[in-house]
């Protein structure tokens, strides 16, 4: 495994080294060009750090602009790559240490958007609360870099490093507000829990490595199934070991060896997988590992809370999907009695119940949103279980599924992963808007985050209240907002799976969504129908937060209205999710594109018939034949504006409009 992460001047053309015998350095450069968005973010974090150290005081604006420039470049690179035919099958870079595939690129776009939004409103917030510090932008970039490593991870080592890079930067951001006693306390709580979960994660990885002898994800998915094959093969010898009478001594010895060798890997693998699962559940803050969440969210500066609620969740779910939906997909690991899905399913139910019931009791908006984010994790985990069940279920004994049934199951699994991605992006957008609003209210070291301080907000600041309402409605799951379609897609996927337990949990989830409406609506009602406070609490100077809030509200609606187009993007990202980067995955994507072409051609024909015209010419285009063509998957024209992946380009536009 060779790799070099760092600021190497990028080759202008990826093709420069093609054709020649690839030397190690040429290969490394080509790999870095494939990883352009990540590399730009990494280099930019260093540039911004140096700029902070060497800039004269009073250049904070410049630093913010510089950071946004870097993020913009990274977004451009990612937009150019996402959907490009070159990445259909996924590309392994740095000898399989990282993958570049559509999934990773979509997550990249999402996290870059989150980072851009946080950078936009954090500066104003920090200035207004008098703890401006120049490292903030750099830390955001480093955490973004960590999330991107997670999205691209092709190896357990990369996964561990990604989680740590992300977490360490966020610990610092949480504790950075030195003029508040709550901020370092929140940082310490978050740090202790985070470090503890890193320990669990590492031990889990060590055990998985011990059981299989590999760390690469695609070898791992293969080795994991051999572990269970060996285990089953050893079962025959167990009888000999248990009742050695009547067998020759030599055979008993041999049987003991066989049993030991066959059972040992499984005995390492199952605890290892559970430890890794526990660590990741910590990171996504699922019950019973959620206790740190409200404290850390409340004590952290609001822009950092926004990053934790949106960015860290995206990263942790990317890791969870990669590992548990993409890699450990063996019937024995997914299903009872040794599988994790049944446990996680009930944890998901507990997570949403606990999150929602605790949120109802909250009088602090930040804590309320923290518990609501816990509840959302519960809904998302239902989707994760559904996806894993589609991929990993074994047929009942004696039943041989047909090729069609196999294809159906893997398609359904891909759709479930796409639903999770859609939900994550819709949730991230809405929660960013909500926290932008929280950060905007209050000034001079005093945040206005108590719920009663929000009463009558609509009379003082109608625009802000409207934006916040849209974001809250999206979080609540009101059509036509993105949050509604996210819930719809995830629950539909879960319901499609035949298992009774999943269906019961879906019903619980729907009931929970209704409970959730209580506290979201209560806040909205108090904003609109209560008299405003006597004294003005003031707000943060600067346009950042209102712009982000407006963009988030607009995007929430757009994601909802353009749900089809957005879902198509997510389907593209998740096509062949379980298949490691290869030709086979590229074929899956091609199939998907062919289906879309066909459907669109039919739609065109129908429309043309209705208008009494000839069938349109669009159907003539063939995918895959023009490798240089940019990845614009054809989308209905009406939905096209919302189809930018739910991320920065649209926000950048909104910035121009708002500014």
């Amino acid at each position, binding site marked *: *495994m060779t790799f070099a992460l760092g600021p190497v001047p990028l080759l202008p053309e990826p093709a420069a080294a093609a054709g020649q015998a690839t030397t190690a350095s040429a290969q490394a450069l080509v790999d870095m060009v494939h990883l352009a968005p990540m590399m730009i973010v990494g280099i930019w974090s260093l540039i911004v750090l140096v700029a902070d150290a060497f800039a004269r005081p009073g250049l904070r604006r410049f630093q913010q602009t510089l950071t946004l420039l870097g993020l913009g470049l990274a977004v451009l690179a990612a937009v150019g790559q996402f959907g490009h035919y070159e990445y259909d099958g996924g590309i392994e870079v740095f000898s399989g240490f990282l993958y570049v595939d559509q999934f990773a690129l979509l997550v990249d776009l999402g996290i870059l958007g989150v980072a851009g939004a946080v950078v936009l409103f954090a500066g104003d917030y920090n200035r207004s609360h008098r703890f401006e510090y120049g490292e903030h932008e750099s830390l955001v970039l480093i955490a973004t870099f960590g999330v991107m490593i997670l999205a691209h991870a092709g190896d*357990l*080592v990369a996964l*561990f*490093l990604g989680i*740590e890079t992300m977490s*360490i930067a966020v*610990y*610092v951001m949480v*504790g950075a507000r*030195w003029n508040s*006693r*709550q901020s*370092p*306390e*929140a*940082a*310490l*709580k978050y*740090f*202790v829990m985070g*470090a*503890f979960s*890193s*320990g*669990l994660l*590492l*031990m889990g*990885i*060590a*055990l998985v*490595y*011990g059981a299989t*002898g*590999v*760390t690469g994800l695609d070898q791992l998915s293969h080795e994991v199934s051999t572990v269970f094959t060996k285990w089953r093969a050893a079962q025959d010898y167990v009888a000999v070991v248990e009742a050695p009478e009547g067998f020759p001594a030599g055979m008993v010895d041999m049987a003991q060896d066989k049993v030991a060798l066959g059972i040992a890997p499984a005995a390492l693998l199952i605890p290892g997988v559970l430890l890794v699962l526990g660590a990741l559940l910590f990171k996504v803050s699922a019950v019973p590992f959620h206790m740190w969440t*409200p*404290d850390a969210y*409340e*004590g952290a500066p609001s822009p950092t809370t926004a990053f934790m609620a949106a960015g860290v969740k995206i990263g942790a779910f990317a890791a969870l999907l990669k590992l548990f939906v993409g890699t450990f997909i063996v019937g024995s690991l997914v299903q009872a009695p040794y599988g994790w899905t049944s446990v996680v399913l009930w944890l998901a139910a507990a997570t949403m119940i606990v999150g929602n019931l*605790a949120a109802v*009791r*909250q009088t602090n908006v930040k*804590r309320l949103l923290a518990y609501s984010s816990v509840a959302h994790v519960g809904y998302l985990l239902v989707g994760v279980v559904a996806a894993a069940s589609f991929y990993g279920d074994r047929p009942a004994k004696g039943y041989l599924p047909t090729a069609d049934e196999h294809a159906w199951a893997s398609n359904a699994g891909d759709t479930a992963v796409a639903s999770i991605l859609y939900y994550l992006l819709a949730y991230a957008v809405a929660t960013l808007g909500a926290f932008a609003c929280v950060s905007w209210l209050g000034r001079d070291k005093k945040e206005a985050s108590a719920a009663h301080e929000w009463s009558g907000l609509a009379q003082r600041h109608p625009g802000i209240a409207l934006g916040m309402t849209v974001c809250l409605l999206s979080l609540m799951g009101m059509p036509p907002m993105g949050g509604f379609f996210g819930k719809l897609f995830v629950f539909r996927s879960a319901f499609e799976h035949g298992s009774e337990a999943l269906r019961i949990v879906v019903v619980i989830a729907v009931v929970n969504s209704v409970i959730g409406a209580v506290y979201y609506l209560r806040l909205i009602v108090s904003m609109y129908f209560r008299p405003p406070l006597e004294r003005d609490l003031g707000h943060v100077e600067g346009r950042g937060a209102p712009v982000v809030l407006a963009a988030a509200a607009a995007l929430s609606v757009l994601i909802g209205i353009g749900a089809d187009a957005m879902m198509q993007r997510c389907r593209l990202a998740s096509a062949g999710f379980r298949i490691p980067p290869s030709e086979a995955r590229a074929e899956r994507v091609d199939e998907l594109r062919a289906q879309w072409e066909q459907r669109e051609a039919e739609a065109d024909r129908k429309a043309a018939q209705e208008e009494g015209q000839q069938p349109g010419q669009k159907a003539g285009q063939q995918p895959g034949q023009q490798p240089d063509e940019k990845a614009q998957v054809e989308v209905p024209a009406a939905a096209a504006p919302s189809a930018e992946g739910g991320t920065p380009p649209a926000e950048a536009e909104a910035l121009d409009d708002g500014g």
Partner: protein
Amino acid sequence: MVPITHFLYLASTLFVIGLLGVMLRRNVLIVLMSVELMLNGANIALVAFSRFHGNLDGQVLAMFTIAVAAAEAAVGLAIVVSIFRSRTGSDIDDLSLLRD
């Protein structure tokens, strides 16, 4: 040659000591040390497995872990220092500004 089980006994002992330390001890510095014990227990397991399987992947991860643990300890200590500049003890139960 020392069999791998011995390494695993050591690794799991260290890991469990660290685990219990994080869960039971209330002094922040001891909690930090316990986290280090957990990471290093895992490290020993990684290196032992690496030798057992005859490939270097585990050792590579162990190297990274050492660096990550140092960075984590540095950040953790910095947070502790920033909290206890204004306080006297380092007891984790004294932190009660944030609660329901």
